[in-house]
């Protein structure tokens, strides 16, 4: 229990620190929401006053802190709506994309790694090279490449959110680099596992190679792979930021970009809260998974 509590508190601290940092950075960026061409200085001053932007940053921050203690993230300037409601709707869209991408990355990356780690033929070498290639392409570039393919061929919708077909381009853009990362880890770790005396003993008992790999080797190789899932969730969020913007996926990344572009500071902080919460939840989940899968890393010993 102590472990969970400590990790939970650390997660809260992370969310708080990220949101405060976002608020401060949005405040430091030149310009504010009220200042726009086409308004007279009097109109701008009136809008600043209405939105509370004419107060010193310390006061604005204190008010934000006080509100956020009651889970009130304030109102978005541009949407005139509570930030929490806007963020909730968009976070759900990001979650759909992230979870789909995680499933696809896992379903592709793990078997890919098992194959490249346990075999040494021409196909395995080719798959290894492919993985390095995919790994070295950032999601921004891969999403642009996939968009071009989708636009040229008309196989999939090029952007936006609609039916399951709309998921294909952003999911692949987000999932492929992660699949490649999982492949690298899984490949390394299954290689190590297959060299262990326990797998040699299993082979000596006459167990078929495929069963040695999948039943014995794979299970032993899982711990290091699971350990990075927390980081993967973090990279899913940062990767989805770029992918959402390129493919117009209406998630947190796109919302945060709009908020930053218009200096909608409450909304920037709200998006940062949600993003940090995603990351914290991912780290927490991977800690727990690690503890469950590796008996040597019991929850008590981790605490």
């Amino acid at each position, binding site marked *: 229990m102590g472990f969970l509590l400590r990790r939970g508190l650390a997660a809260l601290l992370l969310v708080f620190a990220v949101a405060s940092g976002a608020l401060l950075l949005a405040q430091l*960026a*030149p*310009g*504010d*929401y009220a*200042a*726009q*061409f*086409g*308004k*007279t*200085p009097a*109109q*701008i001053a*009136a*809008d600043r006053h*209405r939105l509370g932007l004419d107060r010193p940053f310390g006061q604005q921050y204190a008010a934000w802190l006080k509100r956020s203690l009651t889970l009130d993230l304030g109102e978005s300037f*541009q*949407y*005139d*709506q509570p930030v929490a*409601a*806007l963020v909730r*709707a*968009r976070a759900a*869209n990001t979650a759909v994309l992230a979870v789909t991408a995680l499933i696809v990355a896992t379903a592709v990356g793990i078997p890919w790694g098992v194959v490249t780690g346990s075999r040494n033929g021409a196909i395995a070498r080719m798959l290894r090279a492919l993985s390095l290639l995919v790994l070295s392409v950032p999601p921004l570039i891969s999403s642009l490449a996939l*968009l071009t393919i*989708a*636009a040229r061929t*008309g196989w999939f*919708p*090029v*952007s*936006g*959110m*609609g039916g399951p077909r709309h998921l294909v381009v952003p999911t692949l853009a987000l999932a492929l680099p992660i699949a490649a990362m999982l492949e690298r880890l899984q490949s390394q770790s299954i290689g190590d596992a297959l060299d262990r005396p326990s797998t040699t003993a299993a082979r000596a008992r006459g167990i078929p190679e495929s069963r040695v790999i999948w039943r014995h080797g794979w299970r032993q190789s899982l711990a290091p792979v699971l350990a990075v899932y927390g980081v993967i969730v973090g990279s899913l969020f940062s990767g989805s930021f770029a992918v959402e*913007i*390129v*493919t*117009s996926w*209406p*998630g947190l990344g*796109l*919302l945060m*970009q*709009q908020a930053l*572009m*218009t*200096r909608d500071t409450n909304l920037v902080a709200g998006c940062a809260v949600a993003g940090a919460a995603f990351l914290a939840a991912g780290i927490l989940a991977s800690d727990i998974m690690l503890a469950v899968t590796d008996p040597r890393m019991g929850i008590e010993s981790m605490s």
Partner: protein
Amino acid sequence: MARHSRCALTIAAILFAGACNRGNEPAAPVSTGSARGGALTASIRSEPATFNRFAPNGNQAPVEAVSMLVHAPLVRINRVTGEPEPWLAERWSVSPDGRTFTLVLRGGVTFSDGTPFTSADVAFTFQALYDPTVESSLASGVMVQGKPLQVSTPDPRTVVITMPAPFAPGVAMLDNVPILPKHQLQAALDAKTFAKAWGITTPPGTMAGLGPFVISEYVAGQRMTLTRNLHYWRKDTAGTQLPYLDRLVMEFVSGGQDAEMLRLQAGSVDLMTQADVRPEDIAALRRLRDQGSVQLMEAGIGVDPNTLWFNLTPGNAAVKAKPYLQRAEFRRAISFAIDRDAIANTVYLGAAVPVYGPITPGNKTWYSPSAPTFPHDIARARSLLAGIGLSDRNGDGMLDDATGKPVGFSILAQRGTIRERTATMIQEQLRQIGIAVAVAALDVPALFGRFGAGDYESIYHGFQASALDPAMNLDLWLSGGSAHVWNTGAAAPWEKSMDALMQQQAAAPTLAERQRLLLEAERIFAENLPQIYFVAPRVTVALSRRVGGAVPVLLDPKVLWNADSLFVKH
């Protein structure tokens, strides 16, 4: 139509004849046979922040576009002819002094929820518009010399509108006022919550309007679906009730114009609500047009060109060290030094024409070929600069001021846009006459921030025109106006003369007199040149091959302005 035009062309006729009856229907779309039904998809770059056009944030482009689809004004400005045409008001007459307009409302019109439309809705609309608790961003545009219009409603079909001062565009001003349903919004106005009414969380389908469509679905971040208003009052020449479309889907495409273009090319959107085609996209679109998948339509020469303005606010800190920036000769020299054709050919790939002032040749009624021009003339530019003591004193090829400091200034421009590329071109051209220009590319809020703080030497930017009549764009001309960006402080004597001329222009009785006064104001403008204009783009609109009935115009929304007449081509 001919009678209609004659009547509108000379406002003198309206003012002096005392009563010009407008009984003509607006030109109904010619029947398209079996074109009724189907759906079109339009992309829009941002979502509306509210469905309430009168809200403080109701002046954003998407809110305006939605309002135009869902609501209707008493009088509409025909975006093609530029003339007012009867809309919810079927005719009107004008008092001999030209200040009081008696409008007769169309009979049998109902809101989309079936409630009859009466003059009480008009009275309520103006009450909400001017209510101080609403803080409507629209209100200042529906005032004459800062005073509201007086509205009275002697009977359910008659509205009497009195202008506080003579105003030549007259009822054209009403184009900007969508009529709202009193039965739905009176309670919010009474409770002082009107500004927050009809936010984006309002259930779609519950907001009644008099426009061709009703909002039937709103999915945050994704799309908004508008369906046919079954009670819409307009019909085409064959008597078919408009709109032709069953549905109009507005997809929110936030990835900028690249994302919109991609969708247009992939066929998932039929038109772009706000975007004209960028010069760099024309070649690709021409190929698609030749393959038959898109249509390209020219709307004319843009009426809202980008402009370079200097910070002329008296006493501003940014230019104290460079007094020459305050000299009209300096700005005129820049205007002569720039090869506008080169900008048109290089930056706009030929899809632009040189312009020299705020009124471009695209504005047919108000453009005058006699307005001052600044043809490319390096020698003249050099002599103007030498005349204010700017010359090359150290032989390095660059100009120096009287104290020996190099002559130069910075231009702020919006990052990643054609404005940034044009500013870079200006930089290169001015280097050739010895002026060192630094271009700082910023995002829009940072640009506004620097402008608001007066922390700039010059800015290259543009403003979207909302009307072609200069009397309805007075914010540019009048000191203190929101688009009078070069000087936010006390007006200079020449600005005061321009103020007086433009006030006269807005009230003058005849078109010829108004044109003459505008030309005079343009001459004062060119002499002092607070803003330098270089090119105006040729506006091209791209549509999928499915879009029928489109009549692209120069003011936004360029295609959706006549959404009730759009149809799906089979």
